[in-house]
């Protein structure tokens, strides 16, 4: 009578990478739903395009690398990358934008570094920044919220816009700068924040029309992830607190040139970035004190780039910049070990 003798622990919590990724995906659903309701089906088409491309690239490279394909497709990390990238794209961007971005994210930013767990940069943000730098026109032609346009966009309409190239007249009718972009441009023209916002259909009471609800929906999804202990509160709280404090201080100094904390927190990719992108475990710092530093760093970059930099939104750049220093932060910030003096 011989038994197997594996070593302890003999039990496991049942946590898996797939489960982590699945819950992250579930948490994006409210945000996606609100996004679609304000900007139409283009969002969904982008997600599907990025998904198919990401999975195909992941499988292709895994085969080339002679790695098991199914366990890695099943882990869901490529799906998360694809969805986060797609959520960052303009809903009327041509189809090849999503495809190119997803391919770059998976092949260059993830697999070439060694695949799951080894990429120093957040793949979705690397893909996004590559697109933004390479195709600025396509990447900055945002669609106006459906409520602001005469035309209503059916799924078929979105499909046409994305696949059949730019139909100039339709796109012009429905495209518009984002609220953050508008603020940036107009502030340069010496307009005060109040002048820009008042009467502009792009803005509502809280922030940009639609964007405030999208951000609130992603905030809800993020809180769900914290509740489920998929992410810890440290990074999102640090990011949001930093953005809020910095924007609050400058807003108090000069409310005409600096937009309010409300606008900063509820515009652009703030919530998506704080809860879903900055918390990507692979490219972030790992211990809780290090996470706070990392989050503060992202918050500072978001505010600085949005306010004084060349780009209206800054989540992607901020995350990538902090990705670079994450290993260094981890090296220097170590918790005090039990029984040791600091």
């Amino acid at each position, binding site marked *: *009578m*011989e*038994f*197997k*003798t*594996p*070593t*302890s*622990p*003999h*039990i*496991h*919590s*049942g*946590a*898996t*990478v797939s*489960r*982590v990724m699945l819950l992250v995906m579930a948490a994006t659903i409210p945000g996606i739903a609100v996004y679609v309701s304000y900007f139409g089906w283009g969002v969904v088409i982008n997600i599907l395009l990025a998904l198919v491309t990401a999975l195909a690239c992941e499988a292709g490279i895994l085969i080339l690398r002679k790695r098991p394909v199914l*366990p890695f497709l099943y*882990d869901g*990390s490529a799906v998360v990358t694809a969805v986060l990238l797609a959520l960052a794209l303009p809903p009327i961007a041509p189809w090849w934008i999503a495809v190119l971005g997803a391919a770059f994210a998976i092949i260059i930013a993830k697999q070439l570094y060694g*695949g*799951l*767990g*080894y990429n120093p940069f957040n793949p979705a943000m690397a893909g996004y920044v590559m697109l933004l730098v390479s195709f600025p026109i396509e990447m900055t032609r945002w669609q106006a919220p459906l409520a602001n346009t005469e035309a209503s966009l059916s799924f078929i309409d979105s499909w046409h816009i994305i696949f059949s190239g730019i139909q100039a007249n339709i796109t012009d009718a429905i495209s518009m700068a984002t609220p953050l972009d508008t603020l940036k441009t107009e502030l340069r023209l010496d307009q005060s924040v109040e002048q820009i916002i008042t009467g502009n259909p792009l803005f509502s009471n809280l922030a940009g029309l639609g964007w405030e609800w999208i951000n609130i929906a992603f905030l809800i999804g993020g809180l769900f992830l914290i509740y*489920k*202990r998929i992410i*810890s509160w440290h990074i999102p709280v640090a990011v949001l607190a930093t953005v809020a404090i910095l924007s609050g201080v400058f807003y108090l100094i000069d409310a005409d040139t600096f937009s309010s904390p409300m606008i900063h927190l509820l515009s652009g990719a703030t919530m998506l970035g704080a809860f879903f992108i900055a918390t990507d*475990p*692979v490219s*972030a710092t*790992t*211990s*809780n004190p290090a*996470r706070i530093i990392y989050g503060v760093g992202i918050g500072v970059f978001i505010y600085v780039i949005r306010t004084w930099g060349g780009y209206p939104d800054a989540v992607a750049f901020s995350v990538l910049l902090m990705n670079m220093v994450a290993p260094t932060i*981890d090296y220097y910030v*170590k*918790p*005090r*070990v*039990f*029984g*040791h003096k600091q």
Partner: protein
Amino acid sequence: MKMKHQQTLIQRLLSPHQFPGGVHPPQHKAESTNVGSVKAKIPARLILPLHQHIGEPAEPIVAIGDKVLKGQRIAKADGYVSAAIHAPSSGTISEISNCPIPHPSGMNAPCIVIETDGEDKWGELNPTQDWKKLDASALRNIIRDAGIVGLGGAGFPSFIKLNPGANKSIDTLILNGVECEPYITCDDIIMRERSGEIMLGITIMRHALNAKECIITVEENKPDAFNAMTIMAKETSDVKVVKVPTIYPHGSEKQLIQALTGKEVPANGLATQIGVVCHNVATAAAVYRAVYQGEPLISRYVTITGSGVAEPRNIRALIGTPMAELIKQCDGNPASLSRVIMGGPMMGYAMQTGQVPVIKTTNCIIACTEEDVVSEPTVMPCIRCGACAEVCPISLLPQQLYWHSKSRDYDKAQEFNLFDCIECGCCSYVCPSQIPLVQYYRHAKGEIWADEREKAHADIARDRHEFRQARIEREEAEKAERHRKKKAALAAAKKKTTEATSDDNKTLIDDAVAKAKAKQLQQGPAADNITNDKIETGDR
């Protein structure tokens, strides 16, 4: 599946000294606590490993063929950190040889085997009723002679932990009835059934330690045991019974002390350094029996559980009973099991065969089917999620330890305090990539120990080699010197003989002296420098 890795914030706020991290694995304790304990049958063969404790193995004092009585000492402690072993039942010594023992390596080790005669006849016992008259060291001797070791699982000889040393004072004696590992219930049941014995044992221990305060700790999930101990403690007014939150690894000595007192046992240090001594509740009961009844440690409460047995329960088993016998007595079929674990599922180790015996530290035997344990998970790459760091009770960075252990960068691993890891298994338990983290740490520790041993060996070998080289050189120098002198002496003698004309007697004497000197010189290296010096002086 609900994942509750950590305590809620409220729990944490309510107990301010809580240790960091910890996990909440499914308890599986109710299965074996529905019924009271039963006495196990006396097996035909009792297998008693000489090494059931921390320290040196015991030394047999019986020979094959000897008749032994129950409670008779059959192996004596070898040195200070060691423990005696006693015959758990009467019978004949049939073998003293290597048998499989419960050990992570699955190795065979020297054991004394007793063929029992079924009479279970006690030898002479020496109870000490008026122990209060004895001083601490006499009490410790009784406890040492009874072969008592920590029954919680580590098996450190108890009398040593009752000896705080001449100039140390003990503030707190903690009785550990936490039993935080899933499945194990032997402490729970012994507290319910023998609270009186435990309390008397505690009184003795406290007397030996002269501890200022005494705390009995019971995890919240054992209300019956808590009540039993509380009722008993009322009679001794100053023993506190404290309920602690159910979280693994609360029963680990360092974590328990931190949670109760807020103090941390220094790294590489002992609890006595901060004035605390921790003993298991079952050990207290054993101390009671040793002192009041003169009974050595020959049996213990063992939880037999797991889905491989139809009647999980606690058994009072004789030390040395093969585990398979106990599994059968709980209506299990050892042949159908996938794994047999001694201890709990978080830190216990899997037995190679059911023939290994219950030893002094066997608190639990889990007869596992596939339901109880994970087998061969799909290991994914680390995604750096940090779940491991969140549950680590030592506040280590398990992920960094993993990277460095995996890449065999052992210096770095030690920089991240590898040796502070208590191998509780929390990190492996929560890892979403199912990486066997603890296995990597054990391997790294083993490699580092092996390296150190090798280095120590190499140092000794180098010293010996250098010493030998020096000796050879010295001997050769001495030899050359002797040759030179011998030649000189012979030449001198020859000269004298030829020159000798008048005084024959003088020549003869000179000859004799020269010969004697030559003879002295010819003696081996043992005729040391001193001799040479003398000769040299003589020559001058």
